[in-house]
């Protein structure tokens, strides 16, 4: 793997993370992080959608008429999202019900369209696919971190298994969306403390 490709893969996961640095996809990261299982499935779904739609758009990038390119991209993204939704309905029905509208709303997730516009339209299929997957993974990583703390502190469980002793009283505030925003803020804080060049003057 050459250096450019490695950078394409690793940059979105930490240094250019779509949630904490680009602040995209905040809405769903607040909504689906109550339980770790839901967050994992959501993360996987977004990785598949960003990866495949970047790949497909990159494959047809030279044929897309410029005036309707956003619509063509949207059709491709919508296709991937509906396929993912249908597969989840068939193989993970209870999780699909739990995630409800948020799977469908991946279409509106700025990360997907953003990466297609910024990367896939101007790059070869393979790097575009890597870029899509990496951005999905960067999004998923934050989702999983937030969901880890929210499920642990909010329900005393992890992936549905009791981990904290019964004497721990679950903190209901953690279940509510505001706490997800606070946790997200803490992650941004930690990241900027490590990575000084992200700090605004």
């Amino acid at each position, binding site marked *: 793997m050459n250096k450019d490709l490695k950078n394409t893969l690793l940059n979105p996961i930490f240094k250019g993370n779509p949630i904490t640095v680009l602040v995209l996809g905040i809405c769903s990261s607040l909504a689906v992080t109550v339980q770790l299982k839901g967050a994992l499935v959501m993360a996987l779904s977004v990785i598949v959608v960003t990866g495949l739609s970047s790949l497909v758009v990159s494959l047809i990038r030279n044929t897309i008429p410029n005036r309707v390119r956003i*619509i063509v991209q949207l059709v*491709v993204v919508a*296709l991937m999202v509906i396929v993912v939704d249908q597969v989840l309905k068939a*193989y993970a*029905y209870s999780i699909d019900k739990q995630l409800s509208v948020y799977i469908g709303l991946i279409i509106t997730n700025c990360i997907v369209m953003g990466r297609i516009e910024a990367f896939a339209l101007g790059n070869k299929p393979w790097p575009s696919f890597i870029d899509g997957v990496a951005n999905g993974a960067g999004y998923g990583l934050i989702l999983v971190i937030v969901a880890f703390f929210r499920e642990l502190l909010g329900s005393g469980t992890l992936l549905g298994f009791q981990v904290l002793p019964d004497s721990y009283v679950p903190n209901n505030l953690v279940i509510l969306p505001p706490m997800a925003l606070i946790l997200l803020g803490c992650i941004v804080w930690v990241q900027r403390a490590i990575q000084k060049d992200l700090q605004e003057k």
Partner: protein
Amino acid sequence: MNTNSNTYTVIYTTIIVVIVAAVLAFVAMTLKPLQDANVKAETISQMLSAAQLVNDSDLQKMDNRAVLSKYSESVRTAFLINSKGAKVRELNTEEGSIELADNLKEQNYNIKGAGEPNLPVYVFDKAGEEIYVLPVYGAGLWGPVWGYIAFNADCSKIVGAYFDHSGETPGLGAKIKDEPSFREQFAGKSVDVTGTKLFSIVKGGAPEGATGAVDAIAGATMTCKGLDAAINTWLSAYKPFLATQMGASLSQGCGSCGENSGDCCGGGDCGGSCNGSCGGNHQCNR
């Protein structure tokens, strides 16, 4: 080639849309049987939950197969009835070919006058006792609401209920499903088959000790009204059946027993001999 010409753009978008539609149609058709199986298992698990055969936390751990086999082993019989309460036909309850009446929407139109309804009755066996599970269906605020109400052997008491919805507001209307305490209220209540209002979901709280009413959910007025209407519409359609189960026929005027009709007709002992001339002690003349 000029990719910006009008002709190219129109042809290009048409081809893309046709390809995408074909892929989606293929995916939807391939996955349909699996999705239907999931929906079927969910419907059954809602009935099992209403009948209190399995508690909710166990139900979440059961996979489709476990749900289907639990249904087959605990169901005694299932059949369709018409508006007179007469049995139309049996539904298959064998594990491999479980048949459910999943056309509640269509039956809802039939109840309201579009045709002759075929209403399902599921009879479960719970430790030797019969449990009757009846569906209800109606319009909530954003979409349909439906559910299952389970009655004891003589249909005089509700043993449990389960409700679901397709798109009620999370935290408000969705509480008909998500709030166990709302559903739990139904246990121990009874349905008044003699009146026009069989059951009420009361905004502002049901009166203390009311047998045929439960508290509505705060902030979910329209959902509760819709559910109230669904329950009343459907249980009205089941009235002849419920009355037979209770051992009293409506035509014989047990309604004259007033609000204490339960004393008279609820026991099932009166049978066909209840002539409605209830004494002062609300006992039937036999």
